[in-house]
């Protein structure tokens, strides 16, 4: 399709000069991560499973990366961490792996209304195989009430899956409290932590989930690489059957270059977490406090207290997100939108509807995700551009005044 359409964007247009406020789509890799991967490429490592010296060396760098990632989540036993091809594989592996392994005990799954599609569709897939699911609703801030999870549990429940940080509105869920319930009931608890691992401090012991899925890109590692923390002894089947890689939990020759990048990014994230956090918090505070000086009639979605520091979701009334996004890009600012029009499916975001947004308001939602390289000027410049665009689009809108 893309090839069929004459491109609007001229090839000469320098995309690098745009201000990127859409880090949730992809985070650029910092030089240290790039260098680690480039070095790995030039090295032409052996196969970690091989019995020769080249294999030994490869196994060593693989285990080194595993250690770096384990450290990032304060996991004391490196064997509890396996590498995958990303957040999606991790979530699929966790959910389907636990569901299949525990089918004899029951086929009921409890989840929440605001999960990522990799969780939702994994669970939906299982319902095609005879599993049942209960999805608990969230409050207006997008928070799951642990009591609702408790109420949803039955004797047949074999899995609870509640995400850590939401990718559309940034709300952080009370994982520790949910873990207390699941532990008591001895039900495996999966949390999709793709947006929090490497972004905020995580301690798998304290968090309490039995299995945590995450990805490397949210903390500035490469895309297409992820990880799973699997608490020792958890009853789970692999997704990928075959060789004995990853301690028999995930077969297939390793994407060593990606894994090395993930490890390097984990190391960097550990070192820089506080600094990055502070910077992003400041940018978010600035944006939210300045916003009323630029536009009116909008909603800031999510929970002001429990929220990702790098995500701001704003629903601008009377206009539609894709239009805002296109005009912003034209003005030099990249954001993303949760408007239905922008997605293939034309459905309104389930997350926005779950927090009680009206359909029209959901349509006007843009998601701003600043990154570590953004400056205060970027935020102010963005606000200025937004102001103009909102005025223009509202003029066209039949909903405005």
């Amino acid at each position, binding site marked *: *399709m*893309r090839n*069929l*359409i*004459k*491109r*609007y*964007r001229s090839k000469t247009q320098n995309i690098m000069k745009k201000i990127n406020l859409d880090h949730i789509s992809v985070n650029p890799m910092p030089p240290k991560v790039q260098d680690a991967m480039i070095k790995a490429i030039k090295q032409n490592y052996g196969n970690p499973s091989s019995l020769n010296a080249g294999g030994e060396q490869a196994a060593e760098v693989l285990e080194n990366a595993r250690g770096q990632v384990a450290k990032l989540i304060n996991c004391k036993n490196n064997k509890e961490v396996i590498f995958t091809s990303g957040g999606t594989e991790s979530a699929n592996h966790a959910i389907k792996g636990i569901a299949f392994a525990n089918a004899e005990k029951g086929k009921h799954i409890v989840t929440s209304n605001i999960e990522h599609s990799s969780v939702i*569709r994994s669970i*939906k*897939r299982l319902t*095609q195989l005879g599993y049942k699911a209960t999805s608990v609703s969230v409050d207006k801030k997008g928070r799951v009430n642990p009591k609702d999870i408790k109420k949803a549990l039955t004797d047949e429940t074999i899995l609870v899956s509640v995400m850590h940080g939401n990718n559309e509105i940034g709300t952080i869920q009370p994982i520790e409290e949910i873990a207390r319930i699941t532990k008591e009931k001895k039900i495996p608890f999966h949390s999709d932590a793709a947006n929090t691992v490497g972004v905020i401090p995580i301690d798998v012991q304290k968090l309490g989930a039995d299995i945590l899925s995450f990805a490397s890109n949210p903390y500035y590692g490469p895309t297409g690489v992820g990880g799973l923390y699997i608490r020792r002894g958890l009853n789970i089947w692999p997704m990928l059957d075959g060789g004995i890689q990853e301690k028999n939990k995930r077969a297939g020759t390793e994407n060593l270059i990606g894994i090395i990048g993930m490890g390097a990014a984990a190391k960097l994230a550990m070192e820089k977490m506080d600094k990055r956090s502070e910077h992003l918090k400041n940018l978010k505070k600035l944006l939210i406090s300045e916003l009323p000086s630029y536009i009116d009639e909008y909603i800031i979605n999510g929970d002001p207290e429990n929220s990702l520091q790098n995500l701001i979701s704003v629903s601008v009334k*009377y*206009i*539609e997100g*894709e*239009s805002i996004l*296109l*005009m912003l890009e*034209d003005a030099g600012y990249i954001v993303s939108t949760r*408007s*239905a*029009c*922008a997605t*293939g*499916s*034309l*459905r*309104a975001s389930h997350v926005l509807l779950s927090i009680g947004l009206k*359909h*029209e308001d*959901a*349509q006007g939602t843009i998601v701003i995700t600043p990154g570590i390289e953004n400056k205060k000027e970027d935020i102010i410049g963005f606000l200025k551009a937004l102001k103009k665009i909102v005025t223009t689009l509202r*003029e*066209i*809108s*039949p*909903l405005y005044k």
Partner: protein
Amino acid sequence: MLYSKTVMDHFKNPRNVGIIENADGIGEVGNPLCGDMMTIYLKIEDQKIKEIKFQTFGCGSAIAVSSILTELAIHKTIEAAKKITNKDVAKALEGLPKNKLHCSNLGADALQLAIKDYEAKKSGKTKPEPRRETEAHIPMHKKEGQKQCYCPYCDAKLSKKTTFCKACQSELDQEH
């Protein structure tokens, strides 16, 4: 999704934006699912479209569709304007991405509704109901003559009656 130069031109500099007070015909369409809303206002003189304006709440494509539609329709006779189809709109825009084709139906539908409204008013009938469900959303696999249906999302073979693709888990009741 990528738009043609023409789409972007009409999106960024939309023609004929606004309301016509005491319009001769008004057409309003909307799709409750994706949330598009479009209103077309007509001023008719001598069976010709003298003036046409629009208001649109929707994506870039919906705005561009509205804009080019007004350009296609203006100065046309009612009879000629009635023949404007979604295909004409999409063609005038130099193509639309597949998943945005239905936005062109929206425009054509709004125009036809506005004309009907004009004709109804003229003959003293009541104004037609605003349509909330457009033809865009008649499943494509109901197309005549098509022997085998494939899922528009993942290319799996589909039976004609299904509204759910078991392979990629997509709902098929809309826009495919």
